[in-house]
């Protein structure tokens, strides 16, 4: 071999050729690296922004997958400041039993009956925007509409239409990290009939709620609704709730403290008469059991020829 002449042009030329050949061979060397280079990070809808379709009293942006039915039992005890004669509220019970059906992955309808004011309610919930992972759409948004009928016996006969109230709500949430989610919800509550002439028929409010996971199967939640225009002679407070979500397989168990007695929007947003800071606190829980009525179809069959 001839003595190597340290000519920079030659070395550059050599390295050029060398790189040309080696770049192509190196890229093929590691099969796994090759596979992962080819698999682009998918932008998929973010799941489990909240673990349940309810946060505390109010709804979360979550809708269940098509074909599932949720049985939801919501329960509130009496006020803890009502003393030993009421066993700190545990003697009293307010309950709502509800059934939610997921017609599609994004559309849920629900019905329920509350013991408070003997109210029947029904709602429609539609998830119209979805937060996507890997730099996709930044938040999830769900529209919510409900109607409720207060069927208490009244001293004066009222028309059916006067028992009705409506709630329209836009829920906007973002899962900031696997453990932390935040939701904002502007709400409009319309009551066809109010108790006193001072009460307004339309109440506007803004809610904020969040979840922070504290372990793989439990999370802390909070919820607060600020009313903009509800003026009334009777006590009226903004709804506050603090809770813990516990997941156990097919169940979600939520236990919380709140100053609201009612468990439907019209009640807890516009008609909360307990002062949280004065101890008008109700211990409560939501028990949610999900049933899969219709399966998504049979699992794919193994491939032919195997």
């Amino acid at each position, binding site marked *: *071999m*001839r003595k*190597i*002449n340290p*000519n920079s*042009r*030659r*070395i550059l*030329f*050599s390295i050029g*050729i*060398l790189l040309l*050949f*080696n770049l*192509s*061979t*190196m890229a*093929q*060397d*590691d*099969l*796994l*690296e*090759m*596979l*992962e*280079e*080819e*698999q682009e*990070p*998918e932008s*998929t809808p973010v*799941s*489990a922004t909240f*673990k349940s379709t309810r946060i505390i009293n109010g709804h979360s942006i979550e809708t*269940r*997958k098509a*074909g*599932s039915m949720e049985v939801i039992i919501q329960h509130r005890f009496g006020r803890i400041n009502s003393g030993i004669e009421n066993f700190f509220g545990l003697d009293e019970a307010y309950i709502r039993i509800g059934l939610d059906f997921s017609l599609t992955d994004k559309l849920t309808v629900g019905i329920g009956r509350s013991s408070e004011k003997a109210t029947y309610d029904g709602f429609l919930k539609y998830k119209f925007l979805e937060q996507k*992972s890997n730099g996709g759409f930044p938040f999830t948004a769900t529209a919510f509409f409900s109607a409720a009928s207060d069927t208490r016996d009244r001293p004066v006969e009222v028309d059916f239409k006067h028992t009705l109230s409506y709630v329209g709500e836009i829920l906007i949430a973002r899962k900031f990290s*696997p453990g932390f989610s935040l939701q904002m919800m502007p709400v409009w509550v319309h009551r066809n009939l109010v108790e006193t002439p001072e009460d307004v028929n339309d109440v506007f409010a803004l809610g904020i709620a969040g979840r922070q996971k504290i372990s*793989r*199967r439990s999370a802390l939640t909070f919820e607060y609704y600020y009313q903009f225009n509800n003026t009334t002679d009777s006590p009226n407070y903004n709804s506050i709730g603090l809770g813990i979500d516990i*997941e*156990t*397989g*097919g*169940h979600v168990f939520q236990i919380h403290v709140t100053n609201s007695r009612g468990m439907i929007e019209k009640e807890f947003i516009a008609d909360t008469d307990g002062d949280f800071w004065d101890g008008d606190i109700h211990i409560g829980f939501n028990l949610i059991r*999900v049933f*899969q009525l219709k*399966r*998504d179809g049979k*699992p*794919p069959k*193994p*491939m032919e*020829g*195997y």
Partner: protein
Amino acid sequence: MKMTFVPQPIFHLAMMYNRLLMLIVQLLVVMYLGMEYQSGIRMKQFRHTQIGSLKEPSMEKCHLLFQDTAYRLMKYKKFSAGWNPELQIINYNHLKTINMKTIKIILLMAILPYVSVAQQYKSTESYIRFFSDAPLEDIEAVNEKGVSAFNVETGEIAFSIPIKGFQFAKSLMQEHFNENFMESDKYPRATFKGKISGYDQNKSGWQPGTANGTMNIHGVEKELKIDGELQISDGNVKIKSVFPVTVADYEIEIPKVVFYNIAEVVEVTINFEYAKN
């Protein structure tokens, strides 16, 4: 690409060693050839300059670019003094052979990487199923989004399965699987990288093979030996295997109080179909 610093298993080291060796050999060959090639071009140009008319060697009268080549060549041919007009003829023949060799070897080296690519197969279809047989409830999930690559020549195999691609009959179960067990936001894929041995690439029909390699599930790496079967035909490879995966090996926590139990060992079925890359 994400950089991770994990201890490399032995076969990685072997591969790295091979790569390094190849690099060194290539470097030597290409440097030599590169110089020959460069000087070849120069000599051709040098030949066309009117050096024959020169009375005596005069480096100053040559084009500056060719000075070193001419000088080197004279030393090489032991023309230490005086100018020989025969120089161009001798040199011409010498260059011709070098150039032919250069071209052949360069061509060969250019083709080499593609020869090895031709032996690589990429998956076109996949079916991955996991099945948990527990007293309370059988749980099954199927994923058709896995991808794999297989080198028939060397037996190297790799596959990558997106966790979110597992479809369960119950959507809530799927959510729990992703959120609580697999933490698929943190660990989006299960991967395997290894080598299949014990098969004959010229044999047709199903034949047994054993894959040795590293499985990565839930961010935990584990050395694994998987028995399976493969079928190699022209331009098409099929691989199938059913093997147990011990959930606890991958630090996947199963709570004691769940309303559906997951078996401690789940059965995983993988089917891949490959076509030539």
